[in-house]
């Protein structure tokens, strides 16, 4: 609704502006309203955005837009964040003067694995077409037919199956394109929004997590010109359903007697398994999906137990040249900062095979695994069975949790606070959107308690305390705190050791 009234000062033959009785320049108003989005600003230009003429013109446009609109707001997922609905409140009429038959167009058409199209709701703004052509580089959308029969459609024989297809749902001002994943799940006005970022690759696209009553319903991208502009890939956007999976671990597990036990009993058992070992007998696998605070505490635990072998599980894919990084770990940079990836000269994950060999030969008798599946790390089930001690933290049951002596259920990215460093060296902050289920705890709390029971008392009470200690111990975080990171993150690339 960009109609405005526009004019320029009148000038005399001497090229000087004519002044009215009050000494202000006289304006020559253009008799027709102009569209502001296609108008360049010029020196001396006068603009009326709210004049009776502009308002009247907007009312007229609104009436035209609603002529063929189906008025199915009660079943439309866009309701509540629909620009057309908002403008209808501002400039619309209570009733319609249109007495003819509305133009029928295809409704509820599945045009891709993740997107549904309702052509009757489309206002033909062509944002989705331009996005697919210019940003996603997959020109599959277009208009066919003419006039009021113009219809958005997908290229014959093609689907809207780009990994960026759900961004068209975000930029659609109406409910023409809707997400199949979010379809009819929850009305948007119920959702509490938490600023976060995506942890599905090293890009770390900024996001908003939509939550109602401790359930995540959707993730949408959040504008950050330094990271992701206002886009994100479908893979990362939909990578949150595991958080509310029914198989989530909700209580510590203790073996050989496989029974559910309390958190403190699990800690006691872990102390018995981990302490009193000679250096080199214990190895550690940390996850590059952990936050900096957790990795910092893991490095403290590593020193305390004299662990020599430690590495992360690398997750390499291919970069798509748009947003998705080749490194699918969100915080491999953080793991390197804390020296948990072997050494800086080695690639992350290069020492994983030493861990596998050590466990196979029996040299390593105790293994600590944080947030990863040791079976996926290349350790065989038989070798894991031969370990004296396998202590793990995990979100979901996996090959390792079936064998581990102690398993602590931990928290997912949306369930905790903390920071990560993305592939380009940008420090970003996670916020808690939902609570962890059952007895599951923040990973940093589990790590703090493990450090305490192994004899390294430190009295860390909050995540801020952990960050403070981390900033004191590591020059990369010097002078920073969680709150100083801000919603858009901080560029640390010049402070990081060359990676």
């Amino acid at each position, binding site marked *: 609704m960009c109609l405005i009234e526009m004019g320029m000062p009148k000038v005399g033959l001497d090229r000087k502006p004519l002044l009215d009785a009050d000494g202000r320049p006289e304006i020559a108003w253009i008799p027709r309203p102009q569209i502001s989005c296609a108008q360049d600003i010029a020196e001396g230009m006068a603009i009326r955005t709210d004049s009776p003429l502009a308002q009247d013109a907007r009312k007229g446009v609104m009436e035209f837009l609603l002529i063929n609109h189906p008025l199915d*707001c009660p079943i439309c997922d866009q309701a509540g964040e629909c620009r057309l609905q908002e403008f209808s409140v501002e400039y619309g009429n209570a009733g319609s003067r249109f007495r003819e038959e509305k133009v029928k167009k295809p409704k509820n058409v599945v045009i891709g694995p993740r997107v549904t199209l309702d052509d009757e709701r489309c206002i033909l703004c062509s944002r989705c077409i331009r996005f697919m052509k210019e940003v996603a580089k997959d020109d599959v959308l277009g208009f066919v037919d003419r006039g009021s029969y113009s219809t958005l459609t997908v290229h014959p024989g093609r689907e809207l199956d780009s990994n960026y297809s759900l961004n068209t749902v975000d930029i659609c001002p109406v409910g023409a394109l809707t997400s199949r994943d979010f379809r*009819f799940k929850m009305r948007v006005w119920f959702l509490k929004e938490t600023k976060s970022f995506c942890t599905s690759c090293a890009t770390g696209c900024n996001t908003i997590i939509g939550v109602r009553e401790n359930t995540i319903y959707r993730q949408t991208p959040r504008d950050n010109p330094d990271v992701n502009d206002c886009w994100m890939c479908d893979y990362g956007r939909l990578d949150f359903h595991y958080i509310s999976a029914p198989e989530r671990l909700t209580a510590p597990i203790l073996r050989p007697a496989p029974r559910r036990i309390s958190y403190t009993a699990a800690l006691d058992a872990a102390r018995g398994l981990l302490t009193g070992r000679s250096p080199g007998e214990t190895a550690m696998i940390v996850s590059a999906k952990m936050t900096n605070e957790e990795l910092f505490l893991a490095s403290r635990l590593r020193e305390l137990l004299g662990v020599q072998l430690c590495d992360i599980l690398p997750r390499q894919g291919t970069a798509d040249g748009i947003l998705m990084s080749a490194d699918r770990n969100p915080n491999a940079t953080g793991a390197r900062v804390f020296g948990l990836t072997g050494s800086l000269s080695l690639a992350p994950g290069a020492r994983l095979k030493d861990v596998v060999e050590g466990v196979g030969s029996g040299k390593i008798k105790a293994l600590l695994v944080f947030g990863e599946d040791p079976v996926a790390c290349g350790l065989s089930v038989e070798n894991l069975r031969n370990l004296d001690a396998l202590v793990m933290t995990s979100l979901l049951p996996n090959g390792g949790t079936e064998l581990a002596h102690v398993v602590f259920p931990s928290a997912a990215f949306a369930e905790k606070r903390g920071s990560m460093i993305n592939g380009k060296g940008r420090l970003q902050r996670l916020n808690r959107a939902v609570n962890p289920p059952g007895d599951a705890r923040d990973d940093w709390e589990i790590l703090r308690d493990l450090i305490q029971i192994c004899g390294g008392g430190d009295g860390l009470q909050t995540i801020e305390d952990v960050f403070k200690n981390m900033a004191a111990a590591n020059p990369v975080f010097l002078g920073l705190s969680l709150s100083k990171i801000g919603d858009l993150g901080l560029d640390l690339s010049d402070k990081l050791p060359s990676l």
Partner: protein
Amino acid sequence: MAYTVARPKLTFAEKIYLPAIVAGLAITWKHLINTLTGRKKVTMQYPEEKWDANLPEHYRGAPTLVKDEHGRERCVACQLCEFICPPRAIRIKPGELPRESKWAKVEKYPEEFDIDMIRCIYCGLCEEVCPEQAIFLRKDYAITGLSREEMVHNKAKLYELGGVRTGLVHKWNEKK
């Protein structure tokens, strides 16, 4: 600003109060005699006797869901009633109508629709906000149960109470 209130001029009879007292007692005695002799009844023997036949059309009893004369459930699970409900008594789980359904055009329906009648305050905002003429407050007022679960009206119970309502707008017609 101070101003003077004119005092009423009382007659002698008004000043001594007695006529007013006598008049009041006369009314009291009239009611007493009428009740004792059974000429007038003031107590209704609830629950044997009920006032139901005299409930006004706008009476706000239990909220219910209705179907129309085509047998279509009116509710499309827009969740506006759930949003407006001041005591948060309403809980809806929306679902998608299968494509082969007779009413597939409507696309959306409530898979579950619960109203917690312990919470409900009979305010009628749900009926007022409903864009589909699907929820109506009917004349049921004696909602009882032996457990909290029994006091939650589920979808089946709500349709049983609501029944069929005719004369509603059919906005999901072919010309929409």
